[in-house]
């Protein structure tokens, strides 16, 4: 049975990816989550979809630096992992961040440092076992900072750079690292945003990720149009970019 680990086990995007992974045949899955009860509800759903799958929930404190290492150790006690998806995050309100630096620090941690620490812990194990695929969910927001969400963007930018470094490190090995950059997606994380009509459907995003990872791609923009949009955004000279209200 193929072994999968999701870090951020209650992430809606990750949940939909797993639904696709276990649709055909049973998998061995570990969900790492901040809240066991919520993750259990995800696990119950997946178990109904795929009774043959083995599903385990591990609760972890994502804010404690040592936690990632401990959790990854525990997971690897059962043997090597084939595929890891690091999916946790939260979308902060930029304006409340400006007035509360404690929550700013927390958001930077949860969206940037914590996923990087988990990735690093998995990378160490993967290089030990000389196998594995690591998918890291960053965001288009990490491609260029903009006034309406640069705290989130900065954390995702960190993750993007980190992932690029990891890809460099594992070039030429059997370890595949995939950088995933979803555009705005309809999930509970974005539920507070008033106009969600232009956001991508989470099923479409999950399908893009699963297909891209199956092809061992190094970078996936989902939906695909974001590759072109961000190419333009990244290259806009700042005297134009800074006049834009985005």
């Amino acid at each position, binding site marked *: 049975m193929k072994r999968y680990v999701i870090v951020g086990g209650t992430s809606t995007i990750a949940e939909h990816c797993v639904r696709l992974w276990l649709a055909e045949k049973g998998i061995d899955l570990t969900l790492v989550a901040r809240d066991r009860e919520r993750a259990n509800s995800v696990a*119950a759903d997946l178990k*109904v*979809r795929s009774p043959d799958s083995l599903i385990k929930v591990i609760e972890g404190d994502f804010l404690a630096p040592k936690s990632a290492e401990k959790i990854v150790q525990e997971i690897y006690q059962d043997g090597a992992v084939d595929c890891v998806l690091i999916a946790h995050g939260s979308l902060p309100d930029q304006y409340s961040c400006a007035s509360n630096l404690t929550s700013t620090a927390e958001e930077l941690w949860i969206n940037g440092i914590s996923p990087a620490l988990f990735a690093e812990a998995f990378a160490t194990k993967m290089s030990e076992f000389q196998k594995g695929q690591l998918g890291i969910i960053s965001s288009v927001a990490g491609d260029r900072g903009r006034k309406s969400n640069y705290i989130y963007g900065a954390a995702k930018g960190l993750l993007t750079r980190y992932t690029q470094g990891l890809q460099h490190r594992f070039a030429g090995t059997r370890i595949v690292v995939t950088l995933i950059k979803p555009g705005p997606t309809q999930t509970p994380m974005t*539920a507070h945003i*008033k*106009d969600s009509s232009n956001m991508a459907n989470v099923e479409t995003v999950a399908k893009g990720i699963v297909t891209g990872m199956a092809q061992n791609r190094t970078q996936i923009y989902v939906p695909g149009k974001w590759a072109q949009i961000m190419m333009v955004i990244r290259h806009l000279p700042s005297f134009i970019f800074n006049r834009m209200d985005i």
Partner: protein
Amino acid sequence: MKVGSWGRLNYEDHAFVPVSRDHAPERKETHKKTLPYGMGRSYGDVCLNPLGDLSFTRSLDRFIKFNPHTGELVCEAGVLLRDIQLTFSKKGWILPVTPGSQYVTIGGAIANDIHGKNHHTAGCFSRHLNWLEIERTDGQLITCSATKNIAWFAATCGGLGLTGVVKKLSITLKPVCSNWLDTETIVFSNLDEFIRLSTASEANWEYTVAWIDCGVSKKKRGIFMRANHSLEAGEVTPRDRKIKMPFVPPVSMVNRISVAAFNYLYFCSQKLKIGIKKNHYQTFFYPLDNITHWNRMYGPHGFYQYQLVVPSDAGRPAIDAVLNEISASGQGSFLSVLKTFGNKASAGLLSFPMEGITLALDFPNNGSETLQLFRRLDAIVREARGRLYPAKDARMPASLFADGYPQLEEFLAYRDPGISSGLSQRLMGW
């Protein structure tokens, strides 16, 4: 954000509020009224709430548990029928009742107490529910079933979402030997023949449905289809291939000429299929799901769906009169579906089906011309003591609604005062 329904008649601003899995706090009275909203596949204004909010239930899309011995499925209300069919058909279970599209939420199926081609054998959707949990806007949670809190159950099944948000439910799926159906296609040349075929098929065929040529011609010919689940699988599972109607044409593609041509071609193509054939359940139940956004064909003004049911005794002449009225008006319909409903009672106070004949028709929105035709059809329905299906309706007069649904008064005691819909504003005054 502008939201419209499947009929694309109008788009109005609504705020979307996702329904949380957690217990919701009481909605303060200052809040605008809300309405549970799933996929927005209802045709008229039953899924819209002008000047109000929409509580988006698709976020509740998890299965909770499944018993492989009894077929009991417990799930959240935003689960799509498609997901149930895809997940459980592999294990030998399918939905006991399904409408013509699987892109609807199970909550929506309950709110409209939907029916399928097997109404004469299985009744409405609500007959297969074991229990429901609804959340009222005052924060109260109510669990109800056919044996517990019966009145709440009766009000909520077919209750058009007006009694609260269904959050969880239990339904018993139906065991099947394969995902295929043995289907027989028969041509009929008039209504009497249809009724004879339909009556004769009720005992031995689980599914029956007919398409009737509702073009401008006087002929009432049509295609009758009946089916039973196959014991063995067919050869090639159809691929999930979708055609998309990519844009809204500037004028309706459905007009007098195209309807006549389509109906003629459809009739001829179906005639080639006469006899017995094996069909995959996807092809048999959901032929239109393969054309994404088919509703765009009707152009920028959208279209109306008119679905009526008339009791058996008055059925034959009433359907005849409706068809004559339509052909006299020159406003033909593409997808005219004719079916007899059986005597299986519905649980819901406002459930649509009754023993008799139902006819579903769609018409491009040609403004007053179309509305005038509907007024003439209304008169026939009223005369025959029939009623119209709220899930499809965007314009019926309140008096026809009240006459057609005698238990409306009883229902009103269970409405949630924090909920309204376009339809409730129009037909119930709030």
